[in-house]
């Protein structure tokens, strides 16, 4: 009875807040706008042509620098080196200087690249490739081998991927899977931080408003704490739901617009579109075939479990301090495991979704909601998911016991900021 009243109040307080409304409806728009902006900027960056001057009086390499979309080479060999440098400094990104050499091997370490800005590793790699290629061919010719034959003899393997069940898998599918898993894991982390902070702020608010003692003369502190956590998590879930619906609509609209565009271009070059659609068509069923049911259900359970676990810690921190500024010192131990979950999860899961590290981190309750969500698209045995959930909720019940003790004492303590040692002492009261 009281619990439902508290849940209702907390839920209303969160949902009626202006920042909730703004965040719920504005952030998907902002997110889309940002994605479009990033895409646009990347394409602008890619369109730029880099102009490079080449000074190669002996003509050893000049033919090997071939213009492409991104780089444009200009031969300045007619000028003297000093003049070429001057000219390159004004109108070009940089100057490749190929000295005249008697022994071709000297080219290996005598080619210079002169520029004001340090070049990218990729660019230098390209120049080195040109030199290496030239010398390799030169060496082969010297040894009397026809390099064209070697080129012809070269092969390019394309391994086909499939599962034991017989269905064919696709390249890049793993990347798509980790992308989806990462999105889920990241969402859980963000929500724990944002909504956990809300729980903490709401506890601090009751303390600073001095209403806390009135409330706990009517209900048990534990009820108040749980009501807060449940009410806030419901506000979070509502936000998810709205986002899911908005996202669905957005996807539908975008899909329609995109579909029209594809139709328009198909008139211009039917082959290209066909290639693109076959690629897309190949991936779509795979994406649809992901264990979405399990993933969404697990997401709800892991979100709730993870949120309950973390927010009970957030609540006890809120109770221990008098103001939000005092809370920073205690927040670090919360943020760390969350970050660890995201990064360890990302790097280990993509390597080997069922490796030891990934599996262990998907069992440790502080990281499991994030890491398990990343593993799920790769197919995790049901018992592992169930075990991870069981550990998560068992830990929650343990932690909430400690948290409620700290909470119970902390909410009636005003004045100085407690130390870890004092908080530990409260556990024994």
């Amino acid at each position, binding site marked *: 009875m009281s619990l439902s009243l508290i849940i209702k109040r907390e839920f209303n307080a969160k949902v009626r807040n202006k920042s909730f409304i703004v965040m719920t409806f504005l952030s998907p728009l902002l997110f889309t706008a940002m994605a479009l902006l990033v895409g646009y900027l990347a394409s602008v960056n890619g369109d730029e042509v880099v102009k490079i001057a080449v000074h190669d009086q002996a003509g050893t390499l000049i033919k090997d620098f071939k213009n492409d979309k991104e780089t444009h080479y200009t031969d300045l060999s007619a000028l003297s080196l000093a003049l070429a440098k001057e000219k390159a400094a004004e109108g070009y990104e940089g100057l490749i200087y190929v000295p005249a050499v008697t022994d071709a091997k000297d080219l290996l370490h005598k080619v210079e690249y002169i520029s004001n800005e340090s070049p990218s590793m990729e660019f230098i790699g390209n120049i080195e490739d040109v030199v290496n290629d030239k010398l390799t061919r030169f060496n082969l010719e010297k040894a009397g081998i026809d390099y064209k034959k070697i080129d012809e003899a070269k092969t390019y393997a394309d391994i086909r991927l499939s599962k034991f069940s017989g269905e064919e898998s696709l390249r890049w599918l793993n990347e798509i899977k980790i992308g989806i898993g990462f999105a889920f894991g990241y969402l859980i982390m963000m929500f724990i931080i944002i909504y956990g902070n809300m729980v903490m702020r709401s506890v601090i*608010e009751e303390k600073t408003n001095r209403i806390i003692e009135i409330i706990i*003369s*009517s209900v048990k502190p534990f009820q108040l704490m749980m009501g807060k956590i449940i009410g806030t998590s419901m506000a979070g879930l509502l936000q998810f739901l709205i986002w899911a619906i908005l996202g669905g609509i957005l996807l539908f609209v975008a899909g329609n617009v995109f579909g029209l565009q594809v139709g328009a271009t198909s008139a211009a070059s039917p082959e290209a579109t066909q290639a693109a659609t076959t690629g897309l068509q190949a991936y779509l069923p795979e994406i649809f075939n992901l264990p979405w049911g399990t993933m969404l259900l697990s997401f709800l359970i892991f979100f709730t479990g993870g949120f309950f676990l973390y927010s009970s810690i957030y609540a006890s921190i809120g109770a221990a301090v008098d103001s939000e500024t005092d809370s920073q010192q205690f927040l670090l131990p919360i943020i760390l495991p969350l970050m660890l979950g995201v990064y360890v999860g990302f790097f280990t899961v993509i390597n080997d979704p069922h490796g030891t590290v990934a599996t262990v981190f998907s069992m440790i309750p502080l990281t499991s909601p994030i890491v398990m969500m990343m593993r799920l698209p790769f197919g995790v045995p049901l018992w592992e998911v169930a075990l991870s959930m069981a550990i998560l909720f068992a830990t929650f019940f343990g932690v909430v016991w400690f948290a409620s003790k700290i909470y119970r004492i902390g909410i009636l303590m005003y004045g100085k900021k407690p130390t870890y040692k004092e908080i530990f002492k409260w556990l024994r009261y």
Partner: protein
Amino acid sequence: MKPILEVKNVVKQYGDYTALNSVSLSVPQGSIYGLLGPNGAGKTSLIRIINQITMPDSGEILLDGEKLAPHHVSQIGYMPEERGLYKTMKVGEQALYLAQLKGLSKKEAKEQLDYWFEKLEIKGWWNKKIQELSKGMAQKIQFVVTVLHRPKLLILDEPFSGFDPVNANLIKDEILELRDKGTTVIFSTHRMESVEDMCDHIALIHKSNKLIEGELQDVKRRYRTNTFEVGIAPENFQHLLADISTRYTTRQASFKTLDDELKLEVELPKGTPSRELLRYLTDKGDVTYFMEKIPSVNDIFIQTVSQQK
């Protein structure tokens, strides 16, 4: 009168610090009971135990003869010393919420709220947020949410601190009216004027121990010193002053009268009847003032507390 609240040998410790050392109290039904004591005496600890905010380490508490249990929260109204309300919540919504937490149905809560809003003439505030109200207005709301669920026992911790004189008076009248309707009121304070004014029973707690408890008149009787304040216009001023100080212990007194007579505090030996002094005085001149000096709660408080040091 049968007690509504009995506190029996309650002990509360925080780590090594003893906040309450086997304290027992008995609060009679329908009384206004003053719980007195200096800061840090243990009053708030005791009140929090009665409100079931904390649990005693040992001892028990009976409300209306029943051992204190969670359902009793609906029978107690509590206004803590550290008090406030949700600043961003609307007055009406907030009061309904707090009343429902105390076990009232929404309908009952609304009826009670209408009654009090009418009574205190604050009807227009329903949709205002607390942060939009002045401090005095918020204090009225604070009182209303304390009594909204018609508690049998009202516990007020430093009720007048932070209240302006107008509101303090208003609240005082409401408390007396509630008492007349049968509510028992415990109020905890270290301000003695309000105790003298309102309380019929008192208990004094000092350094975790209860030192005094009883009906206010009884306590005062226990602390009377057979001292009388005397005003006299004597025939021979110097002679009387010299003579009376050989017979009794006297001090300069400071009460107000119309004329410039001799004003003395005269302490009689225990058992000496006052008429003996009066007879002596009437022989010496015109007696203009004669009154037993009744110890104030403040005197008793200071005397007891300083004896303990």
